């Protein structure tokens, strides 16, 4: 009668210790081998690729191994003089996703002076629609991810006042579902990635009061499967990136302790690639910087000593948020 739960089994020989040095090498080397043709980063998301790699390095105190000035110079050249937005790559079109990634990197280096910050603010403001939602670029896809990107960017620049926060909140609230989770738009299925974006948004705007804390936290801890890993929706496979989206959400709600930390640790560690370094979505898959930073960040929330504390709202090192005195709400 029992239908098997959709899950994986951790291989017996999966790694059980954190392979820190290998991961640092992995990030440093990423994109430089011919093998990366197939799996490597694409130019259209390079700015986010940099944010993932650099954040991972800073979380283990290795940011200095890469030349700061080259990164700053690259970001400068990605700012669009016309709109103020920042693109994934030089001469590409600006987008909110890469604007946030760039601002996050600049905060880590404490180099916000490198771009025209007020132009960035104008860009973000220009993307808000009358219903309070945000599009990702001037061509207009609406998504709660962009609501998060907008307020996170503005909060890091200390300019949350530049948009209509109240309307932005009502749009996000309209994406709340009957199971207390959030989707990308009104009535879209609840999805742990969108829950993170919406809670992050509410954390920044100080409006976590609009969620039913315990019901949502229960939905989030229902994401944990017998393998210890977390999925993003019911009946989906576990994936390291959801370790971050779910765990950071639970942390914002002050309910991190509701999941089984030892089981999740085992799952995340099993997703390390012992040969190349780096983390993959599930044991045995190809590692990439995206899953590597979220693996680190999740382990940080679980209290790994060798990884610096991470801020659950911004997915940035906590000391950066402290230094810049970025206000946000945690329950």
């Amino acid at each position, binding site marked *: 009668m029992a*239908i098997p739960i959709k899950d994986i089994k951790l291989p017996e020989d999966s790694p059980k210790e954190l392979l820190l040095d290998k991961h640092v090498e992995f*990030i*440093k080397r*990423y*994109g*430089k*081998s011919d093998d990366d*043709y197939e799996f*490597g*980063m*694409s*130019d*259209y*998301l*390079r700015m986010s*690729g*940099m944010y*993932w*790699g*650099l954040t991972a390095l800073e979380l283990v105190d290795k940011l200095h191994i*890469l*030349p700061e000035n080259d*990164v700053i*110079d*690259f970001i400068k*050249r990605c700012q669009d003089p016309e709109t103020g937005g920042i693109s994934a*790559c*030089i*001469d*590409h*079109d600006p987008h909110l996703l890469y604007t946030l990634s760039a601002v996050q990197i600049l905060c880590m280096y404490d180099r916000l002076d490198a771009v025209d910050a007020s132009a960035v603010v104008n860009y973000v403001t220009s993307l808000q629609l009358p219903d309070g939602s945000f599009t990702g670029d001037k*061509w207009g*896809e609406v998504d709660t991810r962009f609501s998060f990107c907008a307020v996170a960017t503005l909060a890091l620049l200390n300019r949350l006042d530049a948009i209509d926060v109240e309307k932005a909140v009502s749009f996000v609230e309209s994406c709340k*579902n*009957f*199971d207390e989770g959030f*989707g*990308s*738009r009104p*009535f*879209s*299925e*609840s999805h742990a990635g969108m829950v993170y974006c919406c809670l992050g948004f509410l954390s920044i705007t100080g409006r976590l009061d609009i969620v039913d804390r*315990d019901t949502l*936290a*229960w*939905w989030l*801890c229902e994401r*944990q499967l017998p393998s210890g890993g977390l999925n993003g*929706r*019911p*009946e*989906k496979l576990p994936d390291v990136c959801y370790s971050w989206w779910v765990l950071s959400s639970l942390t914002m709600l002050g309910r991190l*302790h*509701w*999941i*089984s*930390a030892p*089981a999740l640790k085992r799952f995340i560690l099993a997703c390390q690639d012992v040969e190349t370094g780096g983390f993959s979505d599930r044991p045995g898959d190809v590692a990439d*910087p995206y899953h590597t930073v979220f693996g680190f960040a999740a382990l940080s929330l679980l209290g790994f000593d060798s990884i610096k504390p991470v801020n659950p709202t911004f997915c940035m090192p906590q000391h950066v948020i402290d230094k810049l005195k970025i206000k946000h709400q945690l329950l």
Partner: protein
Amino acid sequence: MGDSSSDDENAWVFYKDRPEWKDVDPVPQDDGNADIAAIRYTAKFKDVYDYFRAVLTKQEKSERALQLTKDAAELNPANYTVWQFRRDILKALNKDLYEELEYSQHIIDEHPKNYQVWHHRRVLVEWLKDASKELHLTELILNDDAKNYHAWQHRQWAIKTFNLFENELAYVDQLIQDDIRNNSAWNQRYFVINNTSGFTCEVLKSEIKYTLEKIKIAKENESAWNYLRGLLLHDKEGLSKNETVTNYCEELYSSGNRSPFLLAFLVDMCDEQVSQGGGDMRYTLERAEELCNSLANQYDKIRTKYWQYMAEKIKNKAEGKSEPSPPSDDS
């Protein structure tokens, strides 16, 4: 030109070797000096994009440029600038948009989880003001992956914008019959009812009946239990006073079923009655404690901390105290 986008590498002629492109100077990508998340380009990729940048810079809206955007999009369908420029050309050349609609179906079929291809489709449908093919397209995609988030988003958008609700509930029912645990389908059910009849008394009654029948088939189905909770949000009496539901749950419990979702539901019924008082003698603090204990120690051990919290929370309510504080981190 006909087979210029062929996958057969042998048949591929580089743009730089094509006589009809001799008048164009390719524009190479400027990657800056930043030594992180480097990008490796294949010779073909570089060639196509060097020429794409050239026509983009010149804003050349021609047949050959249109063909070039096809090659560029197929090499990297996530490049939103390529799609935007393609649309600019389609407009400028007054192309048959139905032909483009067909092409977009082909590319969505190849890249069903790509944001940009779905966005392209949506813009075309908006231009044509014709969504007659959207239900069929999304059904094709959902046949392969019934939880594809992009397909569901597109489908909801088309249904809502063009009022295509008529047969949707039958489609949802079919999907639920195919896979009773398809959370996307349950979510769609809520979307349809909420936007058509609404949750009137009669609808609520028949939906509860429908859901309980499905739970009977698979009792550990998170989606159906969540949907049941969602339905009862529309019951003015709350979660714990609908006789059909309480009788069903009690019968199930008496029959020896210990699905964590059933027990969780009973816990919430106790929670409601303890805090609101009155009503049903079956839903007491003692019962809540007993259920939480068995969940924590036997039926849902991975979420022990949550069930301990719930037991304490309900106890505090009964004693008129505020909610419990989180335990010290001893995980």
